[in-house]
């Protein structure tokens, strides 16, 4: 499970990978958090659970990261750890369930690094490379 930020002409691009879809999605969540937040002083004070359905693994991944974005900028809530994550192939596509621990964002204590406008579909394609699943994710900032 890992991620690496790579050069992008205007925005933030990150290569994420994992041995499984679960690992890749966890890497993507951590990469999003590192891009958006300076996470130095957080507590696990509340939990939230989200469910997404989509045609492809890319769709549910974008929906999840977009939800994290919405939680931060609108609900002022940031996730600290991923408690549970289930991703399953269904008859119609993919089902993703995630439970996160996190806390309320306090501007006087916490620091946002970037305002991520959106998670883009640009060049996102989850592919098997060797024994790893990989994709590039571009955050529009």
């Amino acid at each position: 499970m890992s991620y690496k930020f790579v050069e992008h002409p205007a925005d933030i691009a990150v290569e994420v990978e994992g041995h499984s879809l679960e690992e890749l999605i966890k890497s993507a969540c951590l990469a999003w958090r590192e891009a958006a937040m300076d996470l130095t002083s957080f507590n696990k004070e509340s939990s939230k659970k989200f469910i997404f359905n989509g045609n492809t693994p890319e769709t549910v991944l974008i929906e999840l990261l977009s939800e994290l974005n919405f939680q931060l900028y609108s609900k002022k809530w940031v996730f600290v750890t991923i408690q549970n994550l289930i991703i399953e192939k269904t008859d119609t596509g993919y089902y993703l369930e995630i439970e996160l621990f996190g806390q309320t964002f306090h501007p006087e204590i916490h620091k946002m690094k970037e305002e991520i406008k959106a998670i883009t579909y640009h060049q996102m394609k989850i592919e098997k490379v060797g024994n790893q699943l990989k994709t590039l994710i571009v955050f529009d900032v």
Partner: protein
Amino acid sequence: MKISGIEIEKLNDNLWEIPPFGGMIVPGRIYASEKMLTETIQNDEALKQVVNVAHLPGIQKYSLAMPDIHWGYGFPIGGVAATDINEGVISPGGVGYDINCGVRLARTSLEFDKAKNHIQKLIENLFNDIPTGVGSSGAIKKLSSKEIKRILRDGAEWAVQNGFGTEEDLLHTEENGKIKDADPEAVSERAIERGMDQSGTLGSGNHFLEIDVVEKIFDEKTAKVLGLFENQIVIQIHTGSRGLGYQVCEDYLKLLVQSEKKFGFKLPDKQLACAPIKSTEGQNYLGAMRAAANFAWNNRQIIMHLAKNSFKRTLKISDPELSFGLVYDVCHNIAKIEEHIIDGVPKKVCVHRKGATRAFPSHNNLIPEKYRSIGQPVLIPGDMGRYSFVSVGTEKAMEETFGSSCHGAGRVQSRHQALKEAKGKNLIDELSKKGIVIQAKGYKTIAEEMPHAYKDVSDVVEVMHNAGISTKVAKLKPIGVIKG
């Protein structure tokens, strides 16, 4: 010649064409100098995106690129495409996430010599009065969902009705700051929540408020109509629809990606997801996008009013002494239904301008009466260390570019590269030596937005001027900047 593997033909010194191949319905046309094309444009995938846009159902005449073209999502930034309203599509990727990101220019009666000793204090006060930075909020009291819906319907009119400006301001705003047929009901609750406390906030990234001095006038007669003169203090505001607009784009992009099979379009990039203009999905997006555009006009109107008050308070002067007034407000991320001549016949089309400014000519009924003798002002901000330009639209723009021109400089370095290059430098000091005071939420923004991270905007403006699309009126030099 071949650039990035794409065959491209020179039509003249400022215009290049990509002949149709594969699934392209129309040719691509790029306004650029040879130097720009071979030195900067070829460095990213923008040309490939010009080709991709030429695949859009119902596209008319050309897939166009302005000289500030660079890699975007789906459409290139600096891209213009018009689609037939009966057989064509609308694409959120042709507008962008920051719906109605735009620029406004306001003039004062102050001359540089009289204001120069107050710039530091002015910038401090502007920075305190106008919320900037990531997730900035709280310029005005938090509005209810009902009030936000009024803004989505009424645009900048809401600001004026609530004491943030004058009727005169509305007359000098594109669409009078209130685009018709906005549909607040097509905007999700989630988008409304995201924009709830962001009216009157600048945001982060390349958004800014700048105090400029008019350094040079190229066209005296036109400048006089715009109320501009050399050594005059003016301000520029660059921001958009904030989180509300980002969410509208995200919501509809998701919907249209999911509807791909329903419409049966085979497009080369998911970010080009689109819907027939007359479909329910297309009409809903248009209504929501217009509502977000109204939110952006209201946002810039409030910011301008806060800036005017900062000037008055700092300089301890009255309204008549400051003589503050809006020159014009343009949007550069939008899709609009307009009438253009196609094959000699007037036709209604949906003009997508993504990182492109409307540039209508003189005598056009859609521009303010006051400017009908000169053409629509085109505001082209550069980077924070060099200059910006004011141009006006021309008849040639109507003939060639669906009445569109460039919108800015465009990055030449990634944020990461800019940060690396800024290491060990004192950028605030460097700007100060050039006579520019800057205040930002964090040093990182200053480093990412440093002047040499951007192309020289004068190259961009020159191509449009020489091509006869928008002609130069004035050059502005920054002397004070606030950023997120």
